[in-house]
C-alpha cells in the first residue's frame, strides 16, 4: 500500500487530500500516475494535461523515480511560499 497526498489547487480541484493505493511491486511515478488515472471517474483526467510536482517520502523527485509499498507520495502544483 502507498499513501498518496495532494496539496494546493490540485487537492482542491480533486476534492481529495489523501488516497491509499495498493501496489504489489515497485513502479515509477509515471506508472503510478497511470494507476491513479485508471481509477476512473474524476481520476480519469486528474492531471488535466499538466504534470504536477512530486515528492517521495518528503523529498522532491523526478517522475522516473521508483515508488515501493510503504512509501508516501505527494503531488502538488509549483510552490508559492515565501
Amino acid at each position, binding site marked *: 500500500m502507498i499513501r498518496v497526498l495532494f496539496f494546493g489547487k490540485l487537492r482542491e480541484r480533486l476534492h481529495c487530500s489523501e488516497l491509499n493505493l495498493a501496489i504489489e511491486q515497485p513502479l515509477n511515478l509515471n506508472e503510478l500516475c497511470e494507476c491513479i488515472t485508471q481509477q476512473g471517474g474524476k481520476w480519469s483526467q486528474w492531471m488535466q494535461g499538466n504534470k504536477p510536482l512530486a515528492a517521495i517520502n518528503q523529498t522532491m523527485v523526478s517522475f522516473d523515480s521508483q515508488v515501493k509499498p510503504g512509501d508516501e507520495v505527494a503531488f502538488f502544483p509549483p510552490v508559492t*511560499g515565501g
Partner: protein
Amino acid sequence: MKISVQAHNFNIADEHRALTKSCTSSGAVVTFTGLVRDLNQGNQIQSLTLEHYPAMTEKALTAIATTAKQRWPLGKITIIHRIGQLALTEQIVFVGVTSRHREAAFDACQFIMDLLKNHAPFWKKETTSTGERWVEFNDKDKQATKRWEK
C-alpha cells in the same frame, strides 16, 4: 540553526536578539521579512491563506539552510515561515543570517529566500474582493535561482 513552521506571529526584535546573542565572531547580521501586501496581479487582497505539506516543510527548509551553511562561512541561521490565514501587512516569513563579514550574510540571506520560493512546499491562496484564487508560481522566482549556479 532555527527552523520553524508556525501559525503564530514572530517578533523581529526577539529573533534578531537571538541571532546576535553570544555571537562574538560575527560582524554582520542580515535579516529579511516577507509581508502580506495589498495588491497582486491587479487584484486587491483581503487575506492570504498558507497551506503546507507538514512532514516536508521543515525538512525542506533545513536542507536549504544546510546548503547555505556549506556554501558560505555563516554563524547562525533562522528561518521562520507562517501558515494558516494571514491578514494584510502581517508577517509571512523571516530569514536571518550572521557571518563574520557582510558579503556572506547578504548573499546567504538572498540565496535562502530564492531557494525557499522554489523548493519549500507552501501554497498561497488569496481572498480578493472578487473571490478566492490560488497564487501561481512566478517564473521570475525560478530565474532568480540562476544567479546561484556555479
